[in-house]
């Protein structure tokens, strides 16, 4: 592990061929920069069950798959759903870039181009009750979880019809109905919140005796976060209390301009999980089917009550850290290498080669998504800005928290308060 760390020495990814099943059962793609192929030795021999179940269930997945008519990992419907979700993510983010340069969007906007496989691969397996907690790169997580493109676009434009009525913005996407619990600007801030949601899930079952299974929480965060203290605190507590959570690391190798390899003593993040007693898995995050397989197993583990999993997805963001980032530090050769591994192109190739769909069906989806995104932009454009009365609203759930006005009544009872003209 000592010397082979240059960003350009890419190991070849496994192509999406029909030999893939045997590939899954045996080895995962080699870690970037290393000249050795890694085995999924996620746990030492002293902790038998989790790793064994992980590996054996990988092969048991292939057993299940053999029962299907074809040898493939997905059916046509599933394939189309995944493809549509990834296209939506890509088209939406590209439109965000356009809108930003036209001045309709402002502030910090962090785009997800290139990482769609992770969001789609994981979130499309969740139920409505399950929670997603993300970072500032959260537009696509919200979209995959079911928040409408209209709501997200309006939120980005700062309009009152946005999912947070324009009060959150790009970095703070909340949606209670779809259990998107944010959108956090500080890296590492979402991880304890996600762990808390997982804690609640367990509490609801154990203490409140609510019916239904464990709801699972997914915490998405990046490689830079893995050097942050809160991450380790939560790995510890999640494993200690066996919380139904999956920690998903979107390792895109760069934290703004800081290369992961320059910032981390041991860059293999998945290896940190066994130190806390949970399995750590490394997966090629540019391949939605591989991500989906790993996601299935880890979400099932959490739902069964076996505790957390750490999944490191090796992925890449095609654009800079944010729209304000000139992205000068990354080697063009590296960018070109990952551009060849575009998850959408790969998925398209897979589905066509395996005769799941034909070109025209995919084109129809792309056209449909283009229309959805255009409609979202129009809707956001035409939506009104938040009224003045919204400024003081929603600071407290109980607005009596604004205190008592000079005349002795509560400030929130003053009619001018709701019009936004009260003196606070």
């Amino acid at each position, binding site marked *: 592990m000592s010397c082979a760390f240059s960003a350009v020495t890419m190991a070849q990814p496994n192509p999406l061929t029909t030999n893939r099943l045997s590939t899954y059962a045996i080895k995962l793609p080699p870690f970037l920069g290393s000249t050795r192929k890694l085995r999924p030795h996620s746990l030492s021999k002293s902790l038998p069950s989790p790793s064994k179940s992980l590996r054996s269930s990988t092969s048991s997945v292939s057993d299940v798959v053999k029962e299907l008519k074809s040898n493939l990992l997905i059916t046509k419907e599933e394939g189309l759903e995944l493809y549509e979700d990834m296209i939506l993510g890509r088209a939406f983010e590209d439109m965000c870039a356009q809108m930003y340069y036209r001045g309709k969007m402002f502030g910090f906007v962090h785009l997800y181009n290139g990482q769609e496989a992770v969001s789609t691969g994981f979130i499309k397996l969740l139920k409505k009750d399950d*929670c997603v*907690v993300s970072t500032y790169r959260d537009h696509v997580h919200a979209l995959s979880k079911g928040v409408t493109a209209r709501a997200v676009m309006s939120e980005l434009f700062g309009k009152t019809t946005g999912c*947070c*009525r*324009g*009060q*959150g*913005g790009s970095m*703070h996407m*909340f*949606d*209670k109905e779809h*259990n998107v*619990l*944010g*959108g*956090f*600007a*500080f890296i590492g*801030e979402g*991880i*304890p*919140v*996600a*762990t*808390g*949601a*997982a*804690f*609640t*899930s367990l*509490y*609801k079952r*154990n*203490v*409140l005796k609510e019916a239904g299974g464990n709801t699972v929480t997914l915490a998405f965060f990046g490689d830079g976060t893995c050097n942050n*203290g*809160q991450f380790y*605190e*939560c790995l*510890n*507590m999640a494993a*200690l209390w066996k919380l139904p959570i999956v920690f998903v690391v979107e390792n895109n190798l760069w934290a703004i301009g800081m290369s992961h390899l320059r910032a981390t003593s041991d860059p293999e993040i998945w290896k940190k999980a066994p130190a806390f007693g949970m399995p750590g898995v490394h997966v090629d995050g540019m391949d939605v089917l591989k991500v989906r397989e790993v996601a299935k197993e880890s979400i099932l583990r959490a739902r069964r009550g076996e505790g957390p999993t750490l999944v490191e997805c090796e992925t890449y963001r095609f654009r800079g850290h944010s729209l304000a980032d000139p992205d000068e530090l990354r080697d063009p050769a590296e960018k070109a290498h990952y551009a060849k591994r575009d998850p959408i192109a790969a998925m398209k190739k897979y589905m066509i080669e395996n005769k799941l769909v034909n070109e025209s069906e995919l084109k129809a989806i792309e056209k449909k998504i283009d229309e959805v995104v255009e409609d979202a932009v129009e809707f956001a454009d035409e939506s009104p800005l938040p009224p003045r009365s919204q400024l003081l*609203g*929603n*600071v*407290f*759930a*109980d607005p*009596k*928290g*604004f*205190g*008592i*006005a*000079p*005349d*002795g009544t*509560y*400030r929130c009872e003053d009619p001018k308060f709701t019009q936004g003209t009260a003196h606070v």
Partner: protein
Amino acid sequence: MSGIVRNKISAFSVQSLQRVGPYALSLRGYSSGAKEMTVRDALNSALDEEMSADPKVFLMGEEVGEYQGAYKVSKGLLEKYGPDRVIDTPVTEAGFAGIGVGAAFYGLKPIVEFMTFNFSMQAIDHIINSAAKSNYMSAGQISVPIVFRGPNGAAAGVAAQHSQCYAAWYGSCPGLKVLAPYLADDARGLLKAVIRDPDPVVFLENELLYSESFPVSSEVLDSSFCLRIGKAKIEKEGTDVTITAYSKMVGHALKAAETLSKEGINAEVINLHSIRPLDRQTINASVRKTNRLVTVEEGFPQHGVGAEICASIVEQSFNYLDAPAERIAGADVPMPYAANLERMALPQVEDIVRATKRACYRSEPRAATA
């Protein structure tokens, strides 16, 4: 200290007893046998009752379970409610404060205990950024019914890193409610109110007050007893000068008022209860009556609670002031360890008396006592 209570009986006239409220009424009738309760027991009973009333309420913090609470405030709760609801955490403030916030996001009502509020600095990102601001950022979708509680301010000889008062820092943040009780019934009533409150609350207790006993009426002992958040309480009515204080300083202010009354100055003492929202209405009404203000707090002077009160008076009651407002705060230094230096770094009763006399133009030199 029951010493204050007994002294107060002799100092008060019958008229002021009638106005001050239930706790004083219980003092008058010795035959009714006033019941006393320590602040610690008051907090414990409040936690107990709220946890039994609502199964969504749970307590989380360092040493709250098997150790019975670092200051024994959560004594007996583990036995009663079990380890699912009284959770001993590892030493990870950022982690468990965040877990509390996440649990509140998703439907529970956590009470997160910090062993002292100094440790809350390790979790302050979660208190402010993910608890206080979330209801606003999500436009009302995600409310955060969480309580962060623990001892705040100086204890005895615990030096700089364990003695800071956080009322001013948390009090400046929109989206938080910040409360500081003094008496046992304040502690009980306010803690019950904040556990029921749907917003994030910072509840600043005081370690030195935990063992102090105060009389409580049967009304206070009732399980539905709750005080209003945002309402200050006039502990002692007066006519000459208004002294505002919170937490332990209320005791000092009351003692100072007693000393001053012997010199003919009838001070009005306000127990703030609520740092955020600040009860500006009560404070201003009082200053308009007495025309003089002295604010007392234990924390650092710059940007402190007293500064905000003075600004509020200048904005709303400027024409009523007969003298410049006096601010008494802790010394502008990290808390020293030596006992005599610590004494000098915190407001003492003599300092309050001196400042009040200055406000009444009966001035004495400003030098600190040795």
